[in-house]
């Protein structure tokens, strides 16, 4: 099977470091007048998004175009998927058009892994169900490393609906490989005990103050209302117990940064003051998303 990028779990440190280094190299491109490199000229990338997404899809499209690749985006609702075509048939049809890579987001965990076993085209996972979102973790790491020497020994708190979060899982795998200390925090019904065994260096807590104490990085997750199949926590109470407010920042380290994969729910996961204050790097994450995705596309197709 040709190498795409399905998840962080199967990457080693060296591969991750290489991607992060290339992303750093691509960062200045956004500030140039002509924001284009020739690296992937003549290549075709298909973005196949079965789930709603603005930022990730746009980010991948822009990344492709910055490298002079051609990009085509397909969203499920507008396609033959709504005519009942199976996943395998859709992918086989696309693969027959010989794209150089397919960037795929799907609501089913493992969908890209299943397809990669049967298709010749490299697949880049843009998020599969609640399993992994590798480029998110990579851009999160790039964003942290823009402000910190290294990931080793950093205390990273990830707060929210961990059970259903592919962002959390990918970040846990990446940060663990680099020796960070990870605290996962959320309501008990969204924090299965098995998470502690996901990777070394993980501990769990249901107390946000415990999670934030002395944290270097605070990652807030979106509360995933459209992916849950049951009401695992009363929505009205969420902000009270798990929302990040300005006064919480006194518990963290003085230079701690606040991150969020977006889109943010102001007043749900974090207060407006926190979203907008100086140590929130949420918009940097978005910028780095393009640089990281350029690095990933270059690695897979270049």
């Amino acid at each position, binding site marked *: 099977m040709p190498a795409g990028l399905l998840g962080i*779990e199967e990457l080693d440190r060296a591969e991750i470091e290489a991607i992060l280094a290339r992303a750093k190299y691509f960062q200045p491109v956004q500030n140039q007048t002509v924001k284009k490199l020739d690296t992937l000229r003549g290549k075709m990338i298909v973005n196949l998004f079965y789930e709603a997404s603005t930022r990730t899809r746009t980010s991948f499209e822009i990344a492709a175009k910055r490298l002079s690749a051609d990009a085509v985006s397909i969203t499920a609702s507008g396609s033959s998927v709504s005519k009942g075509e*199976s*996943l*395998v048939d859709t992918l086989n049809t696309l693969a027959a058009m010989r794209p150089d890579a397919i960037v795929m987001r*799907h609501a*089913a*965990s*493992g*969908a890209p*892994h*299943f397809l990669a076993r*049967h298709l010749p085209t490299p697949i880049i996972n843009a998020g*599969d*169900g*609640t*399993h*992994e979102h590798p480029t998110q973790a990579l851009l999160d790491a790039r964003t942290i490393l823009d402000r910190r020497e290294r990931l080793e020994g950093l205390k990273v708190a990830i707060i929210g609906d961990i*059970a259903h979060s*592919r962002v959390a*899982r990918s970040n846990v795998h990446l940060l663990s490989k680099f020796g960070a200390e990870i605290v996962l925090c959320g309501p008990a019904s969204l924090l*299965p005990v*098995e*998470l502690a*065994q*996901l990777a070394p260096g993980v501990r769990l807590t249901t107390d946000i103050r415990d999670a934030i104490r002395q944290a270097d990085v605070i990652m807030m997750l979106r509360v995933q209302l459209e992916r849950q*199949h*049951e009401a695992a926590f009363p929505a009205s109470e969420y902000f009270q117990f798990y929302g990040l407010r300005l006064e919480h920042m006194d518990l963290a380290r003085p230079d701690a940064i606040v991150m969020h994969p977006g889109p943010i729910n102001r007043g749900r996961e974090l207060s407006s003051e926190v979203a907008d204050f100086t140590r929130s790097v949420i918009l940097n994450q978005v910028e780095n998303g393009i640089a990281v995705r350029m690095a990933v596309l270059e690695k897979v197709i270049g």
Partner: protein
Amino acid sequence: MTIVIRNGRVIDPASHTDRVADLLIVDGRVAAVAPNLAAPNLSSPDVEVFDATGMIVAPGFIDMHVHLREPGFEHAENIESGSRTAAAGGFTSVCCMPNTKPVNDSKTVTSYIVEQARKKAAVNVFPIGAITRGSGGEELAAIGAMKAAGAVAISDDGLPVMNSRVMRRAMEFARSYDLPIIQHCEDLNLSAGGDMHEGVPSVRWGLRGIPAASEDVMVARDLVLAQLTGARYHVAHISTRNAVAMVEYARQQGLPVTCETTPHHFSLSDEEMAPYDSNYKMKPPLRSCGHRDAVVEGLVAGTISAIATDHAPHAGSEKMQEFERCPFGIIGLETALALAMEGLVITGKISLTRMVELFTTGPEAVMRLGRGTLAPGAPGDVTVFSTDVTWTYDVNQSPSRSRNSPFHGKTFRGGPMATVVNGAFVWRRG
């Protein structure tokens, strides 16, 4: 038609036989079991001799839990193909579950299955009728009529009977008709949306989990009702530590409670699943090692009295989808014996005789088919198997119409060599 099976080690637990002997079958029935039987006229074309030197000769194996998919789902399997698959696994009798289309909840469908089997099946096929109409869990099915048409038990397998009042009534009817009542133990509210066992792998892979509690809760409720009604209650495909312990407790109280397990539940755990491979997706799911070990302990202790495959064919396209969309179930008729040898006998957990019981006297005690023994006069159903033969399972050569097995390509030591049903060979290796 006369068959002589020569010089095999005859293991017949029902008659406490374990010795090297010849087996003579005349006109569909066992005529004699003894060493050095005087051979009848060997040159006659009506006499078939099989040299079973070095092999085991056992009563025909019974699989009390299979899905033959006919009527309604013949693209996946039908009675004929399923029965030939059974024969290739060394099984001479199978009991087929009623989740067909239409559901087997009436004498019409039961009779149809009996008639199709009579015409086309390579092995004996006994239908299990539904507990409730359409297996909808509300109104009782026509249990008496189905029994008269040939049903040997009732079950809504594939689904549990969720409503306790309905289950109580069903048990009372089962008792009055002297039928076993077989439950697929799953609390649908606890398992809701789950695709695999709720454990570390499910959390790692981002798949919704089916907690062991969903089986335990249903077994607990049913055992209380079984005590209340005195029904012959049987747990299908038991898979958890608590469920096995509760069945053991009930048996110690003297209740007529039994249970079966599948080869995959005593062989595999969720840690051995290939990620997102639907050939490992079934209900109940493959559970963690602790539960798998408890199942093995239950087989050793005798709490679990039968091995049943839950052979569940699904067409290739259905199992070739994203994991959460695939239907539950794997085929298993051809690999059951070899998995029992590998997981239970070769590992020294149980004796060969005990293994034969799990495939013969165990299911016979529940289903009362009048089979499962080689005593003179018994039906001429024989399973000849080898503990030494090395063979590799190629699912693409299977008589089944489906290919959903996690064991494709696996090399086994031990397996069926020949299958005899009602005095005629229906399958031979090679």
